[in-house]
């Protein structure tokens, strides 16, 4: 379980998070939505300890991240996997080497045959078997995200973070990525945190949806309850998404 309490963060005097309180249950998919620039990614970076809060704390499975030293934090991060918005693949390595990187780095498997077999298994899971020798520059945006996802799950993490997994993808690829998130959840039983501003995608995959606006969580609940929220910002967000869909339908 991840507990975020009174989290504050500013950059150059500009407040981004203004007292975020959120509980992310174990083994469920929590989607954090909100408009662009509202602090979603900043919140996600606090959850994995890439940023230190000005005030407040992030407690992951009983461990307060702000109390960990650099080496301890590094060790603690082994229980996380993260899919970046840009996929963040190492552009000098092939798809295979990218996915094998965490295994080789942490020497969890010394046998190269076992590494190859595990990498192929993860690539198959994300539907990219046969792409092992491609370079990241040869991949489409959706393929890059799927390789990033294979790399994120290769160490079998307990917590998987997704930063805008469907942003910039076409609708078919967005649904494919959403299905991947759901299948990862069913296959690995991990805690997932998804950052998104796509309400449709959120409703498809979430067990819990939290909305962040102006640096605070303004609504949090199950998809059905969230959809019926009377919070004016949530309503505006839902109706804007609905309007976009109905215009597309017509």
């Amino acid at each position: 379980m991840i507990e975020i309490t009174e989290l504050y963060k500013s950059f150059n005097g500009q407040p981004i998070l203004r007292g975020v309180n959120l509980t992310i249950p174990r083994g469920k998919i929590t989607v954090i939505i909100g408009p662009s620039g509202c602090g979603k990614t900043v919140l996600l970076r606090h959850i994995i300890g890439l940023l230190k809060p000005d005030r407040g704390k992030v407690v992951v499975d009983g461990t307060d991240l702000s109390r960990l030293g650099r080496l301890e934090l590094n060790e603690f991060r082994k229980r996380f996997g993260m899919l970046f918005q840009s996929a963040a693949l190492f552009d000098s390595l092939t798809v295979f080497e990218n996915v094998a990187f965490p295994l080789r780095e942490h020497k969890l498997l010394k046998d190269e045959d076992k590494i190859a077999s595990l990498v192929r298994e993860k690539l198959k899971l994300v539907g990219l078997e046969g792409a092992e020798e491609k370079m990241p520059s040869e991949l489409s945006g959706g393929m890059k995200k799927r390789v990033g996802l294979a790399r994120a799950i290769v160490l079998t993490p307990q917590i998987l973070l997704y930063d805008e997994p469907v942003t910039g993808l076409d609708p078919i690829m967005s649904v494919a990525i959403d299905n991947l998130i759901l299948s990862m959840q069913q296959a690995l039983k991990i805690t997932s945190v998804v950052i998104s501003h796509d309400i449709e995608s959120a409703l498809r995959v979430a067990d819990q949806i939290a909305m962040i606006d102006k640096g605070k969580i303004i609504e949090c609940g199950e998809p059905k309850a969230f959809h019926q929220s009377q919070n004016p910002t949530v309503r505006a967000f839902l109706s804007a998404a609905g309007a976009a869909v109905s215009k597309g339908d017509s």
Partner: protein
Amino acid sequence: MDRVLNLISPIFTPFGAFIIEKTRSLGHWVVFCGEAIAWTFRPPFRTAQLFRQMEFVGVRSTGIIALTAFFSGAVFALQIGKVYGLFNMEIMVGATVGLSLTREIGPVFAALMVIARVCSSMAAEIGTMRVTEQIDALETMAVDPIQFLVVPRLWASVFMLPLLTVLYNFVGIIGAYFVGIYVLHIPEGPFMTKLYYYVDGDDFISGLVKAAIFGFFISLISCYEGFTTTGGAEGVGRKTTRAVVISSVCVLVMDYFLTSWILEYFIR
């Protein structure tokens, strides 16, 4: 009093802000250097990465180092030979070029060439990794980016720059020999005798010590500039330029102080 303060405040406030900003940057850089040194002694030891960087910094720089060394030795011999000719001292050309190369020109020019070829690439590569979230990805995979990216580049530069300096000195002297013997028609015997007589081990070693110190600083400056890149492609370009300019200026400024120190304590 308030009027005076109001008058001088617009002048001193930006100056003060500038000093504070530069002091803060220097502080961050010193901490960065400390972390790079500390991570050197913590496992895992990345020998494969170190050798890869040594190949990039050293082996792949040999061509450009040899080319520039030959022509700088040659042109130096040409200029010195013309001036010494006024006093019938041409036989001292070999010794003068040898001393200059081993003590100053070798380490400084080798460092400047490495800055141009290698440090710019270090800053650009690490800067690109920063803006494309690859460094964050390393951290999320529990890999310390300073240990993974900076430590091999740091020690590769410290080990390879002295070797490149040896190459620079050797090829530079060949360039000077070629011009001295075949262009200025200096007798080979006196040219070589004076070279052996005046250039000794201390001159050679002082140049290598300088080169290792240059390697330490230029690699850390370039890696730091890459690490602190923000703002996409434009930011990478800006930081690469900064890395080259700051490293070059540092080499020339440090050279003066290192020379003073070496002349004072080691070479009599």
